[in-house]
């Protein structure tokens, strides 16, 4: 890249004048300093304000300088670059804040005591108590949902990839796509109207896992489908040529080849539904006591626990600490699932000749 050396004006060269490579960084530092300075001078408290001031100064500043030195086209290019960087930072700052606040406030009460006690005899306003009952409930509900959704999802994907032709397959593909967009609360309302209102079953962990399974199926179908499509056709043909029945070819050749990707997809789906609150709120109802039986009576669940602790504490006191600690537990759980899933994907990636 030669233009790094071509900084400053150079009469007689073929290139126009270019600003040095460190220029954007200098403007960024200057804009941040100015943003902080203005905020301090004007007595602004909120970090959003100084960040916005700095962002605007950065874009305007780099445009102004570049327009003078490099000309308008280059200046526009720099503005676009600045805006793209600002867009990126705008997205990263909240995420960093979210992770930071959750960790910092969550570690206060997160310990083994917290993980192994329930809220049974602890009032919302008192310190102590824990998330054991919620953890148990979440694991059971998510486990049941996985048991229901995985066979349906994987078989549907197999149908679409290995057999599917014609209108039925097209309809299934379309509705799987549409199903990914169903709001979780609507899935919850559906199970509510069928299972609880019409069939007169009570609130239970199982009712919640029915709704969670509905949310899980399309995610599993999509990811499994993509993985099965990556299996090289030669493997299928070789197996079929040996006279192996199609169903055994699928079970013994195609699925094992793609199993890494399928596992990843399933784990990502689990990670996604673990944090679902709305259906659980409608169907599982929540309790402060340990209920190990998901098939009868209300259970607790982790996201639900966060919601209850938050809404009962009004943003202060021990309930508030517990909500953050539970949120940290939930995020950790989901992040670990995510990381493991990605690890498996990398480790067991199908060795196709792409």
């Amino acid at each position, binding site marked *: 890249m030669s233009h790094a050396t071509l900084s400053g004006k150079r009469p007689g060269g073929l290139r126009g004048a270019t600003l040095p490579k460190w220029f954007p960084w200098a403007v960024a530092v200057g804009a941040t300093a100015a943003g902080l300075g203005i905020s301090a001078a004007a007595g602004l408290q909120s970090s959003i304000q100084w960040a916005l001031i700095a962002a605007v100064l950065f874009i305007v500043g780099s445009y102004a300088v570049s327009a003078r030195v490099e000309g308008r086209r280059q200046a526009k290019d720099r503005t676009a670059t600045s805006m793209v960087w600002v867009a990126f930072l705008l997205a990263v700052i909240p995420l960093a804040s979210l992770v930071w606040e959750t960790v910092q406030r969550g570690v206060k009460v997160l310990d083994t005591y917290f993980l192994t006690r329930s809220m049974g005899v602890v009032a919302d306003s008192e310190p102590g108590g824990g998330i054991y009952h919620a953890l148990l409930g979440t694991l059971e509900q998510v486990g049941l949902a996985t048991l229901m959704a995985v066979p349906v999802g994987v078989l549907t994907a197999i149908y679409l990839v290995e057999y599917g032709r014609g209108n039925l397959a097209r309809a299934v593909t379309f509705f799987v796509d549409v199903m990914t967009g169903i709001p979780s609360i609507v899935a919850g309302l559906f199970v509510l109207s069928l299972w609880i209102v019409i069939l007169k079953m009570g609130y239970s962990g199982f009712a919640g896992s029915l709704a969670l399974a509905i949310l899980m199926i399309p995610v599993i*179908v999509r990811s499994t489908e993509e993985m099965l499509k990556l299996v090289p056709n030669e493997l299928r043909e070789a197996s079929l040529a040996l006279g192996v029945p199609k169903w055994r070819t699928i079970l013994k050749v195609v699925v094992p080849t793609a199993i890494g990707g399928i596992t990843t997809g399933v784990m990502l789906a689990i990670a996604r539904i673990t944090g679902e609150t709305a259906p659980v709120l409608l169907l599982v109802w929540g309790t402060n006591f340990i209920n190990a039986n998901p098939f009868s009576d209300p259970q607790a669940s982790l996201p639900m626990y966060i919601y209850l602790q938050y809404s009962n504490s009004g943003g202060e006191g021990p309930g508030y600490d517990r909500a953050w600690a539970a949120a940290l537990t*939930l995020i950790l759980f989901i992040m670990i699932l995510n990381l493991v899933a990605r690890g498996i994907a990398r480790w067991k990636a199908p060795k196709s000749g792409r």
Partner: protein
Amino acid sequence: MDITTQNPTAPPAPQPGRTEDGRAARGTTRPGDRIFLGLSRGSGILVLVIMAAIAVFLTYRAVLAIGKDEANFFTTFEWNPSGVPPQFGIAVLAFGTVVSSIIAMAIAVPIAVGIALFLTHYAPRRLSGPIAYVIDLLAAVPSIVYGLWGALVLVPQLDGLYGWLDDYLGWTGVFAWNGGAPRSLFTVGILLALMILPIITNVSREVFRQVPQMHEEAALALGATRWEVIRMAVLPFARSGVISASMLGLGRALGETMAVAMVLSSSFDIQATLLDPGGGTFAQNIASKFNEASEMGRDALIASGLVLFVITLLVNGAARLIIARRKEYSGANA
């Protein structure tokens, strides 16, 4: 795992001696094959049945509820299904849902497109992988945690911004602020924007990746700057993809429940200003009213859920149709 293959395997080219569903043409189907085909086709049909059942059962309960409603379901500004006579309507909810989603889109779409461009065209190679991963993490954070963060961290930070908006744009009426806690539709919009960023970013990124390299190189060869390349070669090619990505994001924003329920301080009225607390959305209303709802109240909530279902179905269906027209990419694994 960006799958952009042209369907490399699946339904293979017509194999001699096999019919469509892979049966041997001789007519002697192996029982194993028949059972397995039945199972997998059954699962596919089950998906359709579930979708149909959702529509049917929601409609059934909703019709019961709307039949007892003494007020106009679509225009009433009230939610009192257990009253005598029961009166409830979705006007406020429809307004709040649409307005908060529009705010979310207005904030999220430019930023998401910016990030997608950043990842595909601006970021150093070494950075773009980890950043894409960070964006995925953003998608993995559960909405309840966004809600907690929004209510306890974001809301207190917004006073200053609201003050500004009131000072400089208050005259429009839309941005007038009377100093209440900033738990308003606008705050909800900001939070929703954050939550739908990842899906819009991921789908847009896929689209930007598919811009033919030749177009970009041709533009560069003509002396275009990077921005001119993007404006002349990338954006025109990617427009429909970005639109459908935005619609997928819109679908998410419309149905978001817990974060809205935790941040919004709701009330059953429509105000001209976005910054004062009040209003409500379909999903938020269901989550907040459900605990105290009578049987009639539950059915009324189901009726409002049906409206939400239909809206999201239309938005998602439209987005999918636009995507389906260009088979190469799909946002479902985003």
